[in-house]
């Protein structure tokens, strides 16, 4: 079926999230919706899925206008959606999840016995037809993320979705899982299903898309051919030409001052979420920890800064043993920490920028005068840092929670980088940021490295890892699979992708050479340089 949007406009107060958007999704095509965070992609999809009512414009299915009052209408019209965050019941089986909300019944009319056998049959049938390889009797909580995503796709297919919306589907996948997803998408489109694929990752777009529509600030700013070079797409997305890579000099590596030995972190259930990690970081180098979300990276950084309780092993910073120290003592020892969730852990949203800028340093001069806070010093500090870090805000007294993500991150960075550091840790430093802010944050991190500070980055975005790292440690299930210098392999991206799935380095190198990934191949076909130039 053909899905068409005509002049869709959606406002939130004074903000126009979607401004007269026209879009046509042809049958059997993969239509990529490309745009930065905040461009209005998700709003648009929620309009199509019936979660928001548009203020103007209409949705046409095969030329007929469609009135949507809720997701139920959208599903009935053949529109399915896979959300970025899965909507699955972990303790239910695949079949139970798939039929949840429209359970098939059997037996006499009105008795309504649950027809689970039928559900299982249907799941198996669809799974076979599209090569999903999903076991209808498996419990969701036992399945890897990539398979859970396929269950979400199944949920849509069971309801005869003809248009499938995938919202940032690759954010949670390893590169290899992404390849599998692409294969599934091919099967679906071959059977006539259309797919709307939402993403901000240029690399994937070019591997999958039949057509690309770029959205910026709520408006369609253009469409592009998948063969268009990446920097052209990026420029369209951001509205100006951007440098996709980070320019950085070769590292001037000094002595190793950070030594992590046999670090074990247990969670509340006693599971070893970090399981015997050894790492060294030298002055003047960036060590990046790569891995799929939830493989112990977060706990590793939190253990270093004293935010985890059950920690054994050793973390030495110069002569200081950090294990057993309280967070305040770790920070005082010269560790700067940018937590992965800035709104939850990095900032007090209701506090002003100037207060947030001294959150960890308010006890010492010049900010404390005896028991009192020196408001003048706070103001001076804020004025200085707001200028230095280009924080866009109407003043230092503005509540940090009202800032955009990029500006919030700049406040956190400003606080952490404005004192002499012995170790700088940044977890997901650019998650959810716009391209301009990403450039800024990356430049600052590299500058800190060049100033001779050991830098530890944790990122689930391979692009970011490749852009920043001098060496890359890949974590899988709490262990370090291997540490790879950034210049060791030609096809580093493929090798890292395999290592992120637990494959040791040597084996990963062999496999990567034998089976180059689709995304990588698409990039090579187009004949331009990889995104990241170091």
């Amino acid at each position: 079926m053909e899905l068409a949007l005509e002049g869709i406009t959606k406002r939130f107060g004074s903000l126009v999230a979607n401004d007269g958007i026209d879009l046509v999704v042809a049958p059997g095509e993969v239509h990529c919706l490309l745009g930065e965070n905040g461009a209005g992609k998700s709003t648009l999809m929620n309009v199509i899925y019936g979660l928001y009512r548009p203020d103007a414009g209409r949705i046409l299915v095969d030329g007929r206008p469609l009135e949507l009052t809720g997701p139920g209408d959208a599903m009935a019209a053949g529109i399915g959606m896979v959300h970025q965050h899965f909507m699955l019941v972990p303790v239910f089986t695949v079949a139970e999840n798939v039929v949840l909300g429209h359970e098939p019944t059997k037996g006499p009319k009105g008795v309504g016995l649950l027809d689970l056998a039928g559900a299982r049959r249907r799941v198996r049938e669809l799974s076979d037809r599209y090569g999903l390889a999903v076991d209808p009797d498996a419990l969701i909580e036992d399945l890897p993320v990539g398979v859970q995503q396929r269950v979400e796709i199944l949920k849509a297919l069971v309801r005869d979705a003809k248009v499938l919306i995938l919202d940032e589907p690759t954010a949670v996948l390893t590169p290899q899982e992404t390849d599998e997803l692409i294969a599934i998408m091919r099967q679906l489109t071959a059977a006539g299903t259309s797919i709307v694929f939402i993403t901000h990752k240029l690399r994937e777009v070019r591997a999958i898309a039949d057509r690309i529509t770029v959205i910026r600030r709520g408006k369609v700013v253009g469409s592009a051919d998948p063969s268009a070079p990446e920097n052209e797409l990026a420029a369209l997305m951001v509205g100006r030409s951007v440098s996709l890579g980070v320019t950085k000099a070769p590292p001037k590596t000094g002595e190793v001052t950070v030594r992590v030995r046999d670090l074990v972190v247990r969670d509340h259930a006693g599971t070893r979420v970090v399981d015997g990690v050894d790492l060294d970081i030298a002055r003047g180098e960036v060590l990046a920890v790569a891995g799929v979300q939830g493989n112990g990276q977060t706990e590793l950084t939190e253990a270093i800064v004293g935010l985890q309780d059950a920690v054994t092993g050793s973390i030495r910073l110069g002569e200081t043993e950090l294990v057993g120290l309280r967070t305040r003592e770790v920070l005082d020892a010269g560790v700067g920490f940018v937590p992965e969730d800035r709104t939850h852990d990095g900032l007090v949203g209701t506090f002003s920028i100037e207060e947030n800028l001294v959150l960890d340093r308010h006890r010492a001069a010049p900010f404390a005068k005896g028991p009192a806070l020196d408001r003048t010093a706070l103001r001076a500090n804020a004025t200085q840092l707001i200028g230095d870090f280009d924080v866009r805000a109407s003043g230092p007294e503005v509540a940090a929670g009202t800032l955009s993500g990029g500006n919030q991150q700049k406040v956190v960075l400003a606080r952490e980088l404005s004192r002499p550091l012995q170790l700088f840790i940044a977890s997901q430093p650019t998650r959810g940021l716009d391209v301009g802010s990403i450039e800024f944050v990356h430049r600052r991190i590299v500058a800190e490295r060049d100033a001779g500070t050991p830098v530890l980055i944790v990122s689930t975005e391979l692009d970011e890892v490749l852009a920043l790292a001098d060496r890359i440690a890949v974590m899988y299930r709490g262990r370090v699979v291997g540490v790879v210098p950034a210049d060791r392999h030609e096809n580093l991206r493929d090798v890292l992708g395999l290592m992120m799935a637990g494959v040791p380095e040597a084996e990963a190198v062999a496999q990567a050479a034998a089976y180059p990934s689709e995304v990588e191949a698409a990039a090579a076909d187009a004949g331009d340089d990889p995104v990241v130039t170091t």
Partner: protein
Amino acid sequence: MKSWLEDVRRSSWLVSLLAVVVAFVLGGVLIALTDPDTQAAMGYFFARPTDAVSAGWRAATEAYGAMLRGAIYDPQAATATRQIRPITETLTVATPLIAAGLGVALAFRVGLFNIGAQGQLILGVILAGWVGFRLHLPVGIHLLVAVLAAVIGGALWGGLVGVLRARTGAPEVITTIMLNYVALYLLAYLLTTGAFQREGASNPISPPIDDSAAFPLLLGDSFRLHLGFLVVLVAAAFVWWLLERSTVGFRWRAVGANPAAARTAGMSVSAAYVGVMVAAGALAGLAGAAQLLGTEKSLTGGIAGSIGPDAITVALLGRSRPLGVVLAGLLFGALRAGGVLMQAQTGTPIDIVLVVQSVIVLLIAAPPLVRSIFRLEPRKRRSTDSADGAAPTAERQGAAA
């Protein structure tokens, strides 16, 4: 509960003001409906509705007029002293309410729901009472030691809650409520023991405290207003400084607003919980000192009255800010003081004061309710609170930037 507290605290002054106005209007309607003249006129309401309306209006205005005279200034009284006594009564009654309200408000700001002002106050009066009637110290020192004893008693009782919360995670709502009972029955028990019961008395009452342990009266013997009122005002100023200007208060507010970020910035959430509960208890203890050493002079089982529960209302109405708490405490003091004269002169039961208080609580505890009654613009929520889910919120945030 924390986000609800935040909403109450951050709602505008207008909401608090409107809550008070609505409560008085509803109270007035209730006075009118229960007035015998009005009820008689209601019998022929459809024949002559004006009778019922005017009778109701008269009843309500008379009652509130009496309340006003009883709370602020009574021009009908015989002597000048009696004319101005109402305002001093208001201040006297408000004194412990303000102190205990400050304690509750302080804990609110750190994200703790301190229901335990009552228990903390009782512990305070137990210690202060013992110092007041068992120790016989020189003038000046005796009062100081007695007040300190009250403050320490409250601080210990509050601190216990803080330690339980910090060490074991026991919710302070439960522990404070339970410790209120413990304190109440501890006092009841002590008043049956030789150390506390007045010699020769058969009812549970303590000996009167020494004059040297009492707060001096501010305006002479004709008025009950005592030095405790000024002490409490100083305490309010101190709480303001503590919250807004001190490094300790900075940490407490940070823990209250976002404990995760406070912890990540190296602050100790446990220390904040214990510290603020000690301070909150100390303030409730000070309220006890004002009650015992200023007005009651003897310990009885019911000395705490409803100060503890009222303190929660005062803190909420004052939006957990020291100045707000002082004003809310004065309002409640006026209601209490004025209610007495209202009942005496117009026969309107003093319970109407309770109704007014309760409606105020109801309305300020649900800011959206007042906003919808008066069709106020909903205040701008932080976008993270949006009910629309994370993804569209992020989009909006970015697009707004």
